[in-house]
């Protein structure tokens, strides 16, 4: 591997991008420092340690489940002759777009006390379902929101995998399972690591699901400080605890990555389809079960609420204009985010040095922060130092990019990791400049990762609420704000139509960005 110095053309934009992404951290340090030593008193409270423990337990459970569901789903959809796999390719990642508070509401509507399931079982004499509030509910709701990360990133990696390797291993007499364990899985390692990281950070930062499920995670006490005490200092200190936890996870993931080297990826060839044989229908049942639980059930609850709204005379008004706003702002954010992460990813992957890796890790840390913290930090900087931009669409898109930069980064990086630098070096040796190599060799090879990253940013931005509420131009309604307008009132029957619309309009984008198989993607160049 070449150990050349990073070119300034890459280093400067990368540093600039990360500097913007860590603005919220700068804000937190500012706020925490402003409170003096007293500010840190909140850390010494006996409850704080319990909160950290509970938060970490949730992170571990959600991350583990997300991988256990997302990885087999990705493999089945990307590589096998699974029945109805195109349908699964779109349906499986779709729960990602359901805002976590809506996911939690829908799960409560289905499995909560007096929910749909219990009403169904009532004639059979079932009077009480197992308690969903607390850990179980938070775990289920967050798994719903996060297993698609693993599905999308592992799926992109599986589609980009050079089948020659697996063929060779098969030729050497390895069993299918042996091939998967010794060849496929190691090749997936970077994308699994990146996806687990995103899942863990998402769980750390989530407030919607834990608050509705009444699970006491750190974010709940951060919100408590803001909402009840109006005290921004302890909130900032607690948010820094989240950052510290994120940093620990980041170091852990980086360590576990050491020594894993990408397999050389050669010529473009669609991956082979593995026949499932007798396992076809059991595999189908598994996929169907996951999609039923995490997509069909919430959809059913939303449809049920919509119908009840019609019965109550609310009528159904689909907020198409809000849908257009959501799609526009989210698509803009996705495209710009992908461009912005490229230099950071290239630097970290192609010029590995202590500082380039540190820069890349730094870009992830803010992802552990709850949306309100990021929103308020941008309020602070923009209102006071960028007044003309404050509460404009540009700032809102910027906020989405800051919040979801790591999602784009993970997509691009895991794809980049799977491309051996020697391919680029070969192109360079043929006399092409670095930019030309980037455009004609690297980007086409990693396009699935780019698309997966874009999909992650897009779907997350579609459901973003806290920053949208505070930073949008006045009167700019998105589907997320439409949903909030009614959930804030507790009017589920009126919140359901925009929530359904959110899922509906996101589906074609999921298809375009992430669901097509290798052979469907038009050849590069």
């Amino acid at each position, binding site marked *: 591997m070449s150990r050349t110095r990073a070119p300034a053309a890459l280093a400067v934009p990368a540093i600039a991008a990360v500097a913007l992404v860590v603005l919220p951290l700068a804000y937190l340090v500012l706020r925490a420092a402003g409170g003096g030593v007293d500010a840190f008193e909140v850390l010494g409270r006996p409850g704080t340690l319990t909160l950290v423990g509970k938060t970490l337990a949730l992170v571990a459970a959600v991350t583990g489940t997300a991988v256990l569901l997302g990885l087999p789903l990705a493999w089945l959809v990307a590589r096998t002759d699974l029945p109805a796999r195109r349908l699964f390719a779109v349906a499986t990642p779709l729960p990602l777009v359901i805002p976590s508070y809506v996911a939690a509401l829908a799960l409560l509507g289905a499995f909560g006390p007096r929910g749909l399931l219990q009403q169904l079982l009532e004639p059979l004499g079932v009077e009480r379902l197992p308690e969903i509030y607390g850990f179980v509910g938070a775990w289920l709701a967050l798994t719903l929101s996060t297993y698609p990360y693993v599905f999308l990133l592992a799926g992109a990696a599986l589609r980009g995998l050079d089948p020659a390797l697996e063929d060779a291993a098969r030729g050497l007499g390895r069993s299918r399972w042996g091939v998967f364990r010794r060849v496929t899985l190691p090749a997936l390692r970077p994308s699994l690591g990146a996806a687990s990281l995103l899942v863990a950070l998402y769980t750390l930062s989530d407030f919607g699901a834990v608050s509705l499920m009444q699970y006491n995670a750190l974010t709940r006490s951060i919100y*408590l400080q803001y909402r009840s005490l*109006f005290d921004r200092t302890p909130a900032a200190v607690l948010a820094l605890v989240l950052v510290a936890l994120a940093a620990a996870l980041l170091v852990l993931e980086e360590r576990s990555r050491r020594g894993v080297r990408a397999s050389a990826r050669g010529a473009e060839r669609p991956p082979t389809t593995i026949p499932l044989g007798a396992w076809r229908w059991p595999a189908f049942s598994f996929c169907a079960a996951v999609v039923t639980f995490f997509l069909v059930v919430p959809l059913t609850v939303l449809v049920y609420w919509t119908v009840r709204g019609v019965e109550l005379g609310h009528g159904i008004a689909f907020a198409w204009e809000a849908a257009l706003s959501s799609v526009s702002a989210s698509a803009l954010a996705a495209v710009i985010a992908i461009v912005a992460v490229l230099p950071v990813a290239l630097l970290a992957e192609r010029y590995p040095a202590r500082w380039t890796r540190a820069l890349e890790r730094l870009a992830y840390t803010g992802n552990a922060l709850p949306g309100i913290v990021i929103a308020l930090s941008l309020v602070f900087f923009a209102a006071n130092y960028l007044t003309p931009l404050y509460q404009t669409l540009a700032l809102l898109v910027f906020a989405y990019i800051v919040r979801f930069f790591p999602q784009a980064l993970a997509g691009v990086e895991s794809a980049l990791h799977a491309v051996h630098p020697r391919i680029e070096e070969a192109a360079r040796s043929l006399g092409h400049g670095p930019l030309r190599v980037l455009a004609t060799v690297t980007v086409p090879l990693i396009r699935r990762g780019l698309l997966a990253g874009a999909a992650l940013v897009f779907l997350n931005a579609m459901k973003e609420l806290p920053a949208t509420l505070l930073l949008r131009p006045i009167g700019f309604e998105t589907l997320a704000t439409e949903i909030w307008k009614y959930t804030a009132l507790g009017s589920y029957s009126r919140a359901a139509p925009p929530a359904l619309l959110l899922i509906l309009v996101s589906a074609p984008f999921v298809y375009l960005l992430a669901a097509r198989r290798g052979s469907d993607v038009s050849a590069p160049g």
Partner: protein
Amino acid sequence: MRKVTVLAVAALLGVSAGCGGDDDAGANEKLVVYSGREEELVEPLFDRFEQETGIDVEVRYGDSAELAATIAEEGDNSPADVFFAQDPGSLGAVEREGLLAKLPQAALDRVPARFRDPDGHWVGTSGRSRVIAYNTDALTDDEVPDSIFDLTDPKWKGKIGIAPTNASFQAFVSAMLLELGEERTRAWLEGLKANDPKRYEKNLPVVEAVAVGEIELGLVNHYYLYLAKEENPDAAVANHFLTGEDPGALVSVAGAAILETAEHADAAQHFVEFLLSDASQRFYVDEAEEAEYPLVAGIDAKAGLPPLDSLQGPQIELDDLGPELEKTLELLNEVGFTT
């Protein structure tokens, strides 16, 4: 990739077309309101104000506390002229940042002294009472306790619902602390805890749980009943108002304030006066689905509600609730209600 680019460009065009009206070239006067009150509830008031005055109202809706934090972060650069908030706590927080202007005495005098800031920085615009919501299938009105102190009776074990992390419950505990002191408040909280109350995130889920019989009693604000009935007209739930100086009868308000830095100060003043006009106060009686109390003298509450004068509640200053909250949270935490 190409398709994605095309989509993005189309999106960009769509957005720029959609937000063309952003630059206020019109000669109309403008007013910027940060509203912690829900759009569904107060939008008609804004519309009416626009019609009556010709002033363009731009409203940013959000959570009251988050908007208060936003105004604090914006500091002197806040674009907001008026802060229209759900609770005295949010208004008080902005006041303590020194960001609120003093309201004209004439506006303040429209409402009784107990429903406004003693320093004149904010004024209540509508009221709400704490009540005990009860399941009408399980209980008659007579069987519902007349004081929150009866709720520690073991016969209510497992049958009470509360929302201890919600601002309205916390305000009620703060009021209790201010009126009765820590010892009695702690004793009551511990007694309540011993009765295994079910906990919910917000008031409305409490009312809904009462309605379906998951619990029999719920400590909530009176108007959630109407919101629950809106969702389900047959809901088996009713309000029981407490009397006298029982802390469970706390009456709190939503209110409005003008920012010190308001660019459109005249329009802002106009708007606050408008909110306190007889016509706007009647809005809460005749039109608003959630049946809040009008605060201006001479305008009676919606039929079926006990008159505002008959609701006493604890003798405390609403503006003192905010500063008391830290102690309240500590107490709730110690008793084990928030963990």
